[in-house]
């Protein structure tokens, strides 16, 4: 007899084991084939390995036969082989064997019990592989075939198997339906009946129908007693007691726990039930507010057990243990059990969710069939009604008919809606946790945005006024120094607010990388120029190594600037002597070219064990250093996130006391090189020109910039001639007012400016020039003197002309250098 193991069938929370089709004991075997088959069946539940070798021997025997029953016998052996392989979890091996058996039987004897058995075996494999829908179809087919073959017992087992699939999906209404049907269909086998009653009890308990559940367990218990199985009775008692605990009937639960303990200790086989009984006992103790006793039980049950490897059967016990330890203040243990509970609960939920999802389409099909049948019946009833009316005996038919139609349609509708709702519930539970997390992040983002707004408003006052003061020419040097300090501190504060917002944007995925064509070398030069003064003041050499860097690339210039700025700021901050080098180059990578940006310093260095820390927000190497080196402590965290957002990463090499190198590698996308090296040789066209504007009036400077910026490669601006210096400009446009108050003073200033910005051409833009001044300024070195106001198109035309004239004399030398 092949009753499924009681423990598995009676499990509380675990997915029910799929029963092997048991059958009444066969008569004494006659042939070697019959002996092998009997041996295989005998060994199937307890020792599938033996069952497998017996089935192979049976197959061998069957193949040697010649009679009419040969193919059926081969199929029988294949069924047993498939069942054994299924139990050994060798699913891939089981499937072809079963399929072969099915092929022979489906044509030879389609209505035989063997056909049903093979379908059940196939369904078992499919269900184990999570292919719920075809498994369900096979169980249903097997059920129909067993019906034709008059095998009520096998029919009941098919129904219980279907019930167990719905148990996986936690569809307890369906579980009830199928197990109840199985119990009604074949009440003659106590082992089947006790399993059905017990599972019905569990399903009722899940639906909080406690009184009905308790009645079912009582029935199951009576059957177990008749079977004289202490193990099964102990299981049923434990389930009954667990229901009573939930029901609040603690005294009854105590009685049944005691009884279950007695039964579980009655014989060796029954001891298998002990952990389950302890679990319920612990739950009862907890319900009685005795966590100490509950914990003691948990301790006993889980002694020597790896909590990370427990099974679904232990899920509820873990929860009880967690609550008990928590109440006792033993947090480490509470946590260990909570983790185990969560792991198993997730497992159960995943199983339910996937089974449900798979069932959904199947249920839709059934529901649709049901509604089609309902509609057919409705039209049939309509005909009946018409017939009856014709006969003049309308009376009750109409009423009864409409009620029946209504019920049928309602049933179909509810069934569709329920399957939809259940899938939604399963997914809903999973997404609820995510939603909560999202909400918390959202709340923090909003908080940061508000805080940022509230800090920026007064900061606007501070930084605005320091700028106004610093722009005032009357400010004396000593005071300027102090205001500069004030301004610098305000800027640091602004950087902090910006950095915090950036981190928040990165976390919420709102950081947008907007790639566009840009000039990489120019960006590097600008960055170096920005830090040159600071490096110089500290006596640190600043080197720019961009000979191997590409010029025009497609990247987010603003974000790249942020990375360079942060790395340079860091390097200069932590270096007191020696050098800081910014080197940029391209290198081949596994997925195409990469851009390598490295900032190397000879600074204080970072100990190896802190290399990862520096990329964490608000971490500098140690607390004392944080005080010595001002900064937000967010720069490197942002650099790393930006580098990753650009398809790369940042790396650190450092030796304590010797220095550090931060290297950013990101995906490199080159732009079509339309404009040759802006950082190198002199520009050849106006579009490549680098301009410097000198204008003391910020508005006219801004308007001038707005007019010329779109036409040239780069525009810098200063407000006084004294600030204009460097050999990296092609054209310098100077406002007359910045040159001086008289024509002579202006001419002198032009001559000095010409030297300071050589080889750039100087264009003077002047309002109210003195008579003859234009010639005087040209003589002093101005390439052009343009009277203003002047319409923008005319100004641009004049500038282009001036640029072309300037270019002419150098054209030859540049051509020569290219030839050389």
């Amino acid at each position, binding site marked *: 007899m092949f009753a499924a193991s009681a423990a598995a069938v009676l499990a509380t929370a675990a997915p029910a084991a799929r029963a092997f089709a048991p059958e009444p004991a066969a008569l004494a075997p006659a042939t070697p084939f019959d002996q092998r088959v009997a041996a295989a069946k005998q060994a199937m539940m307890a020792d599938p390995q033996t069952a497998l070798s017996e089935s192979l021997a049976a197959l061998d025997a069957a193949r040697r036969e010649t009679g009419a029953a040969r193919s059926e016998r081969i199929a029988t052996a294949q069924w047993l082989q498939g069942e054994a392989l299924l139990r050994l979890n060798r699913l891939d091996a089981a499937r072809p064997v079963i399929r072969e058996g099915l092929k022979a039987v489906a044509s030879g004897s389609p209505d035989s019990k063997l056909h049903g058995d093979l379908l059940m075996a196939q369904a078992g494999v499919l269900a184990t592989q999570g292919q719920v829908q075809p498994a369900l179809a096979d169980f249903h087919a097997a059920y129909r075939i067993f019906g034709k073959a008059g095998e009520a017992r096998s029919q009941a087992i098919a129904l219980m198997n279907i019930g167990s699939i719905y148990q996986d999906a936690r569809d307890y209404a369906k579980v009830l339906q199928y197990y109840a049907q199985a119990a009604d269909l074949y009440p003659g086998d106590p082992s089947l009946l006790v399993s059905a009653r017990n599972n019905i009890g569990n399903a009722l308990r899940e639906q909080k129908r406690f009184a009905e559940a308790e009645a079912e367990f009582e029935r199951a218990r009576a059957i177990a007693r008749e079977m004289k199985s202490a193990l099964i009775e102990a299981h049923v008692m434990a389930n009954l007691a667990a229901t009573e605990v939930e029901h609040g009937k603690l005294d009854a639960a105590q009685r049944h726990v005691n009884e279950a303990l007695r039964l579980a200790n009655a014989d060796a086989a029954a001891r298998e039930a002990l952990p389950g009984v302890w679990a319920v006992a612990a739950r009862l103790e907890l319900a009685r507010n005795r966590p100490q006793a509950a914990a003691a039980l948990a301790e006993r049950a889980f002694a020597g057990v790896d909590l990370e490897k427990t099974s679904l059967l232990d899920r509820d016990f873990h929860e009880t243990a967690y609550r008990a330890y928590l109440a006792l203040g033993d947090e480490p243990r509470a946590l260990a059990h909570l983790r185990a509970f969560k792991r198993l609960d997730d497992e159960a939920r995943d199983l339910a969710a996937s089974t449900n999802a798979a069932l959904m389409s199947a249920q839709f099909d059934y529901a649709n069939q049901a509604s089609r049948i309902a509609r057919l019946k409705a039209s049939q009833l309509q005909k009946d009604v018409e017939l009856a009316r014709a006969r003049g005996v309308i009376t009750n038919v109409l009423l009864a008919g409409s009620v029946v139609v209504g019920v049928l349609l309602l049933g179909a509708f509810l069934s569709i809606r329920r399957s939809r709702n259940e899938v939604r519930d399963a997914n809903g539970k999973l997404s609820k946790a995510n939603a909560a997390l999202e909400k918390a992040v959202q709340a923090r983002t909003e908080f940061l945005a508000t805080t940022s707004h509230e800090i*920026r408003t*007064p900061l*606007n*006052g501070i*930084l605005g006024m320091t700028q106004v003061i610093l722009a005032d020419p009357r400010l004396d040097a000593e005071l300027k120094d102090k205001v500069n300090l004030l301004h610098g501190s305000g800027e640091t504060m602004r950087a902090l607010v910006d950095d915090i917002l950036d981190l928040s944007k990165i976390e919420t995925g709102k950081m947008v990388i907007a790639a566009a064509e840009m000039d990489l070398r120019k960006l590097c030069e600008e960055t170096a120029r920005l830090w040159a003064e600071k490096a110089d003041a500290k006596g640190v050499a600043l080197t720019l190594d961009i000979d191997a860097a590409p010029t025009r690339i497609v990247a987010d210039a603003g974000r790249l600037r942020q990375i360079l700025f942060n790395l340079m700021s860091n390097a200069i901050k932590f270096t007191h002597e020696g050098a800081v080098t910014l080197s940029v180059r391209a290198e081949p990578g596994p997925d195409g070219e990469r851009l390598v940006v490295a900032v190397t310093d000879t600074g204080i260095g970072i100990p190896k064990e802190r290399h990862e820390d520096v990329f964490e927000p608000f971490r500098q190497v140690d607390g004392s250093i944080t005080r010595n080196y001002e900064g937000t402590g967010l720069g490197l965290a942002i650099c790393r996130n930006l580098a990753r957002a650009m398809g790369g990463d940042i790396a650190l090499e450092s030796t304590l006391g010797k220095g550090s190198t931060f290297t950013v590698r990101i995906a490199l996308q080159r732009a079509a090189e339309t404009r040759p090296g802006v950082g190198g040789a002199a520009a050849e066209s106006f579009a490549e020109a680098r301009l410097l504007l000198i204008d003391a009036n*910020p508005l006219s400077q*801004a308007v001038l910039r*707005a007019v010329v910026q779109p036409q040239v490669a780069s525009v810098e601006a200063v407000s006084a001639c004294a600030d204009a210096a460097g050999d990296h400009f092609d054209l310098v446009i100077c406002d007359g007012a910045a040159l001086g108050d008289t024509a002579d003073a202006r001419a002198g200033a032009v001559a000095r400016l010409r030297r300071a910005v050589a080889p750039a051409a100087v264009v003077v833009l002047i309002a109210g020039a003195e008579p003859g001044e234009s010639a005087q300024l040209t003589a002093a070195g101005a390439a052009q003197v343009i009277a203003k106001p002047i319409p923008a198109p005319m100004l641009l035309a004049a500038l282009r002309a001036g640029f072309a004239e300037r270019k002419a004399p150098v054209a030859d030398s540049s051509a020569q250098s290219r030839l050389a």
Partner: protein
Amino acid sequence: MRVLLVEDNDVNRRVVREMLRAGGIEMAEAADGEIGLQMIADSDYDVVLMDLRMPGMDGMTAIRRLRARGDAKASLPVIVVTADAGSSIEPDCLAAGADGVLLKPVSMNGLFDAIGKVVAGRKGGDILVA
């Protein structure tokens, strides 16, 4: 050159006034959107600087109302000056009809560049201001 600043915070009004003075620009002030719109109706300005969060009518509403005017003043250049750093602020402002957005704290260069840009852009760059 006449600029109208619509801003509720008096310290920040003073800051912008001082900054603009350095560029020789005269500035009129309004403490909320409603007053700002009234002033635009009553006199002529070249540029409007607009805060967003203000008691009474907020900046975004004021920009929409201004753009909904049926006359030439509807196309008056508007630069938003806000302490709101949200990532959707700039696209929202531009969608409402702003010509530019400046984030507080405002730099002097940023302020003049923004004004220079809208002036050069709106007037087709016909005159360079002396």
